[in-house]
């Protein structure tokens, strides 16, 4: 494989005038299951082979993807990529340049306790069915339970024209469980995601029985929940909500490509945008977490990147192109979903660092407010506007947790909200997730429990 990819890169640099070339070949094996209630909709297995070629010609990118390892097809693809890049470069005012990196030769072997490739389909189905049964039989008001299971096992080869040659195993296991409940015309639903880059041993830590119950319990609890009052309130956020806030409301703004595209962070580097208690990291090195890897898809080592320290913006997430623009080192955030797409700047495991408060200390001074434990979805805009929907939340009255609320959401501007973080817990938790930015990336996010002195709470009331 190394020889083949080197030949392709040489064609680009020696024959078609590329200043830089990289080739990324992948062999991927996937297993997917979809269950709806007790019905197995389909047991699926897939094989995908392909090569991504990326070249820099006259400062413009050319990219080609083909599902083949055939030298003639790859040679045609690299010629296409170089020609297109040349055409596009005609109008280029600022040619793209890459930050320098060390050439790396390495082979990264994953060492799962249980490789999903060695686990029989029957076993995977049994796990999924167990989750399902435990959710469905939890309460007669549970009306549905769907499970999506996915595992990936494969290899990725990365060779560039600067001497890097990296072979990395690709491995991950993921599942999403969704349950719904109904009573007296009220519909509620609940979702849980689990994921790991370690191996199928994920299910030894996340027991299928408990997972099923957990999802069902939340849906049932929501049935008796009341809508929140709209308006500004103090809120205590659980690690799961903190995670999605860090990821959606702040993290995307700290992706250097979006910062450059007019995001609010570019002009705030080195400035204080949050309270002293706010410290954020994006870390690709926590072994086994969703979003962990040794080298990114530009061959740059993954690392722990400081984004905010004590409220001050300290860094952004970079690929080689943006690192050159900002005159910093690349941070190893260039990721591509597979060989069909180009690497772009993506988060890895993004979290808020814990401090020293207990949960009781966080809620004891809240007179009227909310505790939001788990999120339903989140979204943000480059101007810092964010919205996070809540799937599990409670009222707080005089320092005590009250009745559950449903269909709540919080919204506001990320930078204003970060100033209002007035207490940060000492606990810490991460949750896996998937992030969409034109392509899907497996990520993690989390943090401690925190308190925000004021945020807009929306609901249907």
């Amino acid at each position, binding site marked *: 494989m190394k020889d083949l990819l080197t030949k392709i890169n040489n064609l680009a640099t020696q024959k078609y005038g590329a200043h830089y070339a990289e080739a990324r070949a992948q062999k991927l094996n996937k297993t997917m299951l979809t269950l709806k209630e007790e*019905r197995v909709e*389909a047991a699926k297995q897939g094989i995908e082979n392909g090569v991504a070629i990326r070249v820099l010609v006259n400062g413009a990118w050319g*990219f080609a993807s083909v599902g083949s390892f055939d030298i003639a097809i790859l040679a045609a693809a690299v010629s296409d*990529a170089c020609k297109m890049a040349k055409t596009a470069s005609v109008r280029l005012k600022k040619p793209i340049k890459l930050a320098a990196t060390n050439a790396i030769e390495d082979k990264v072997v994953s060492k799962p306790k249980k490789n999903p490739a060695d686990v029989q389909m029957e076993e995977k189905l049994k796990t999924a069915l167990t989750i399902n049964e435990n959710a469905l039989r939890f309460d007669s008001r549970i009306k549905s339970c769907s499970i999506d299971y996915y595992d990936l096992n494969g290899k990725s080869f990365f060779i560039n024209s600067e001497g890097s040659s990296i072979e990395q195993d690709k491995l991950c296991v993921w599942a999403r469980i969704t349950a719904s409940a109904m009573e007296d015309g009220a519909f509620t639903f609940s979702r849980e995601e689990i994921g790991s880059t370690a191996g199928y041993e994920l299910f030894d830590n996340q027991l299928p029985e408990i997972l099923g119950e957990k999802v069902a319990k939340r849906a049932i609890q929501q049935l008796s929940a009341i809508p929140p009052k709209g308006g500004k309130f103090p809120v205590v956020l659980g690690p799961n909500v903190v995670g999605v806030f860090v990821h959606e409301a702040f993290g995307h703004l700290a992706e250097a490509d979006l910062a450059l595209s007019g995001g609010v962070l570019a002009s705030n580097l080195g400035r204080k945008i949050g309270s002293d208690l706010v410290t954020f990291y994006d870390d690709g090195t926590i072994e086994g977490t969703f979003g962990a890897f040794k080298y990114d898809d530009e061959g740059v080592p993954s690392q722990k990147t400081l984004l905010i320290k004590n409220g001050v913006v300290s860094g952004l997430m970079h690929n080689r192109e943006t690192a050159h623009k900002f005159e910093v080192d690349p941070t190893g955030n260039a990721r591509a979903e597979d060989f069909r797409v180009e690497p772009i700047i993506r988060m890895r495991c993004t979290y808020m660092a814990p401090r020293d408060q207990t949960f009781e200390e966080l809620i004891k001074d809240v007179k009227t407010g909310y505790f939001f434990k788990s*999120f339903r979805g989140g979204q943000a805009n480059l101007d810092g506007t964010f919205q996070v929907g809540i799937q599990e939340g409670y009222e707080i009255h005089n320092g005590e947790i009250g009745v559950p609320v449903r269909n709540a959401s919080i*919204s*506001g501007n990320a930078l204003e909200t970060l100033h209002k973080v007035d207490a940060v817990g000492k606990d810490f938790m991460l949750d896996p997730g998937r992030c969409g930015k034109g392509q899907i990336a497996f990520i993690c996010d989390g943090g401690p429990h925190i308190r925000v002195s004021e945020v807009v709470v929306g609901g249907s009331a």
Partner: protein
Amino acid sequence: MAVLEDNIMMQLAENAVKASLKKGAQEAEAYVYEGQATNIGIELGQISKTNRIIDRGLGIRVIVNKTIGFAYTNITDDPQAVEKVAEKALSAARASKPDNDWRGLPQEKLYPKTKRTFDQKIVDLTSEDIVKIASTMLDAAGEVDKRVFPVEGGVGGGYISGAIANSSGISGFDKGTIIECSVATLGKENHLVTPVCFEFNASREYNLDPEWVGREAAKLAASAIKTRSVETTSAKVIFTQFALQELLGYTLTNAIKADNVQRGQSPFKDKIGEKVASENLTIYDDGLFESGLRTSIFDGEGVPHQKTPVIEKGVLRNFLYDNYSAKKDSKESTGNASRAGYLSTPSIDTTNFHVIPGNKTSDEMLREVDDGLIVYFLQGAHSSNPVSGEFSVVATPAWKIEKGEITHCSRGVMLAGNVFELLKNVNVVGCNERQMGSLIAPWIMVENVRIVGK
């Protein structure tokens, strides 16, 4: 790389079915997909990226004793790989659990004709052509206002073809083209940045208007720079297609899928023939809509596409079915099995979800609002409750309408309520229809929408 000819694709599909039956499948279905796309990307206001993606593959679904297995590969030029996929599909089926509701793959039917879904000019596009479209769009976006910048966008042309065969006699091939251009803009003044504004054109034929796209995206951003707050109130809101797509996509679309209805996941269960929306609202799912972005001859199971009434004058008429859910209800599939290329088994989805236009122009609609909002982009619709329809979203941004005219932009405005209630309060449907992904719709005006000001 030249595209695969229809007879080669058909042969691949038919061979895969034969191989599966020979290896022990009682029923088999094969779907062969090819997509070729050329795109250029705009970053930081300049054309700096190009790509060419060729993706081909084969997916096989087999049934053994009512268990279903599926496997796919993107290695299509090796007959052994095809055999291997058939084996993988069979091993998946044998490991799985029988589904007693399985009533067989769909049978052969006559295929309809579609209009204006393929244009050779798109297949023949050169990178020079695409760069020219992008340049026109960028120039137009840059000329509107000094404070507005095109930040990202792209132009892309693609060819897609699919061949399907099954053991019940289905055998079909269809091909199509699509071309699109889009640009996102931002307005900046002092330290203030507007939300991202966006415009696009997408078409099955080579007839984009990149100048319009650039200009409109820039005009939106320019009008979003100066902002004023709005009061918390209930008022008339005009939803443009962008907002409609968000709001309906996570709620109404789910409610009319037959599998959700059968699983008790739809508020429309047992409501066929009942009034579920304002009588101003008529919606068809039309897989044959002339030049529709989702138009093709057949669906992901080889069932002919058709035009299905979903809501007529507010009355719920039909749910959308694939083969499996239809047979469960002793009905015919409506041709709504959708497929993500060769990578997945079919699942129910809308084709062209067509909100039938009314007769009011956009100006006439605005004139009917004394005090209200017009909303383009929404944030947070994906956290709506898909079953109950409850939503709470942020308009990014919204524009205030006073006495029939758009007066100013407002940031951070939240809209809250229930989509299914909102459908009952649609009082005007515009005539300014446009296509946006699966949605074909005009603007709609809704009364009494809850607005949470900032």
